[in-house]
């Protein structure tokens, strides 16, 4: 007890980590559902449909299937590294999320801000450090399987991740110059307010840094190995790429790591370019306090309508539960004490969801690049453009200083 009293940071952090882990794991599971539904819509299909109403229990069924499948280890593999690789991939992907602020730091419990696990002064650098280590999970998985296709997949992906990491980092430096700090909370706080001459546009970094943003989002898709840059797992050429030999839960870990990386990258885009947990509306518009609750109540009303009209049998019960959840949480968000609390996380999640939708949208729209196209795109177009963006930004920032001298 004495130890706990002396180190409130440790205790609060552990609680925050447990809660965040639970939320992120659930979000990962339902992100797969979301992706399959949206891609199905784009391709005029139904997507997951049979397990639960609207296929809502599909992630659960998939998880159970992964758990109970036989866990094969190829006899020629390097046993230690073969086991280490998926753990490395998933744990690094989850560690990165600990650095993300989901709400303003002013909301505190026991003197600790509740919306961020670890508020570091070098938050951004640390995040890049973690993502730069993330390559090992993929490369080692490919190597340790001791098989042709995984090795090729691992090689391709390490080459790709190294190449695009350069542009990813450079595209962000423009924002850092504008913000003047590496701390996420300070970067977000710096985007508060509106531009001087156009008072209706929020002072988000996307507007001055539009080139940087485009470079970032392209490099980010490549960095997370997603379509159209998913060459490491191009199934027509490489079976399944680096995780061909993996089965059961080890495969699921790679799968979860990929989705966790998608979430991290979307969160980072939100923080750096879209004002993080800040609302796009001026503070004087107090009706926005009711927005999260009202939206959830609307969703609840729609699902209630859906339950009553379209659902039968057990699906009706499942949909009724969803309706009750939406209505209940919506009503809770309208309680005066909760209203200001929920603002930050609400805007943050909304923006992140937009990015995740964008990810899925590109997957449903674009064909895959060829490997040489990918490499020349990264080195010959993306890198020079992000470098030029950096040069121009720093020149424009130093211009006022020059005219004074």
């Amino acid at each position, binding site marked *: 007890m004495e130890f706990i009293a002396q*180190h409130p940071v440790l205790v609060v952090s552990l609680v925050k980590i447990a809660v965040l882990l639970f939320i992120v794991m659930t979000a990962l599971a339902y992100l797969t559902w979301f992706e399959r539904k949206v891609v199905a819509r784009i391709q005029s299909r139904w997507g997951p449909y049979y397990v639960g109403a609207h296929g809502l229990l599909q992630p659960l069924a998939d998880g159970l299937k992964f758990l109970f499948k036989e866990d094969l280890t190829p006899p020629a593999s390097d046993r230690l590294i073969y086991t280490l690789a998926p753990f490395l991939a998933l744990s690094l992907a989850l560690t990165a999320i600990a650095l993300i602020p989901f709400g303003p730091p002013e909301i505190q419990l026991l003197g600790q801000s509740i919306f961020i696990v670890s508020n570091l002064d070098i938050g951004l*650098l640390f995040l890049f450090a973690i993502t730069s*280590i993330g390559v*090992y999970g993929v*490369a080692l998985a490919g*190597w340790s399987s001791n098989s042709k296709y995984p090795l090729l997949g691992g090689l391709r992906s390490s080459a790709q991740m190294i190449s695009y990491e350069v542009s990813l980092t450079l595209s962000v430096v423009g924002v850092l110059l504008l913000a003047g700090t590496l701390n996420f909370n300070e970067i977000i706080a710096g985007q508060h307010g509106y531009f001087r001459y156009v008072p209706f546009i929020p002072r988000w970094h996307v507007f001055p840094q539009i080139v940087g943003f485009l470079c970032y989002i392209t490099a980010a898709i490549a960095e997370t190995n997603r379509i159209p840059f998913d060459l490491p797992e191009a199934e027509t050429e490489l079976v399944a790429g680096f995780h061909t030999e993996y089965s059961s839960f080890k495969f699921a870990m790679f799968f979860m790591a990929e989705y966790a990386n998608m979430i991290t990258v979307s969160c980072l885009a939100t923080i750096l370019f879209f004002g993080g947990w800040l609302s796009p509306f001026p503070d004087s518009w107090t009706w926005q306090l009711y927005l999260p609750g009202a939206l959830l109540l609307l969703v609840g009303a729609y699902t209630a309508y859906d339950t009553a009209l379209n659902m039968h049998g057990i699906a009706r019960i499942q949909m009724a539960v969803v309706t009750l959840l939406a209505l209940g949480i919506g009503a809770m968000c309208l309680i005066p004490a909760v209203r200001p609390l929920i603002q930050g996380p609400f805007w943050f999640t909304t923006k992140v969801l937009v990015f995740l939708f964008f990810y899925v949208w590109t997957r449903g729209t674009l064909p895959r690049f060829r490997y040489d196209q990918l490499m020349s795109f990264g080195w010959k177009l993306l890198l020079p453009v992000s470098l030029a963006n950096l040069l121009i930004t720093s020149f424009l920032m130093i211009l006022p200083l020059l005219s004074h001298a």
Partner: protein
Amino acid sequence: MSLPFIVFFVCALLAVLGAVLLIVAREPIHSALALVLVMMSLAVLYLLLGAEFIAAVQIIVYAGAIMVLFVFVIMLLNAGVEERTDWSKIAKFVGAPLGLVLLVEIANRFGSSEIGRTVANGNGAANQAVSTRDLSAALFHQYLFPFEATSILILIAILGAVILARKDE
């Protein structure tokens, strides 16, 4: 025993363990990974000293870029298991004892120095972190010339590598 003290010893042990593994391991990839372990532990030690920026850069540059390239090349060449020879006589009878003497001497010197005593008393952890701002101010004002000279040197090395690797046309 304070928390930084425990973390220091765990990471120091890990660093030494990684260094030994690096030499003992027979598979090149295992050696490379052991080196990554050394670098990560060193990064934690930098953090304990309050050098946040150096710690992050240590991970990004060494563990994240250079070692990834090492692993990449080992994978690309598909390097096999190392061959070993027995120790040569000189190494066994002169090299090993001399190495031991060097180790003892370093430990002795370090233990009797000012820094060594501070660390041994458990005061190794810095009271105040060096901010990135201070570091960059020092780099770009006080040490601007050496900094730029180093970067030009590295640029020359890169150009040299490109020219050597180019095919003759």
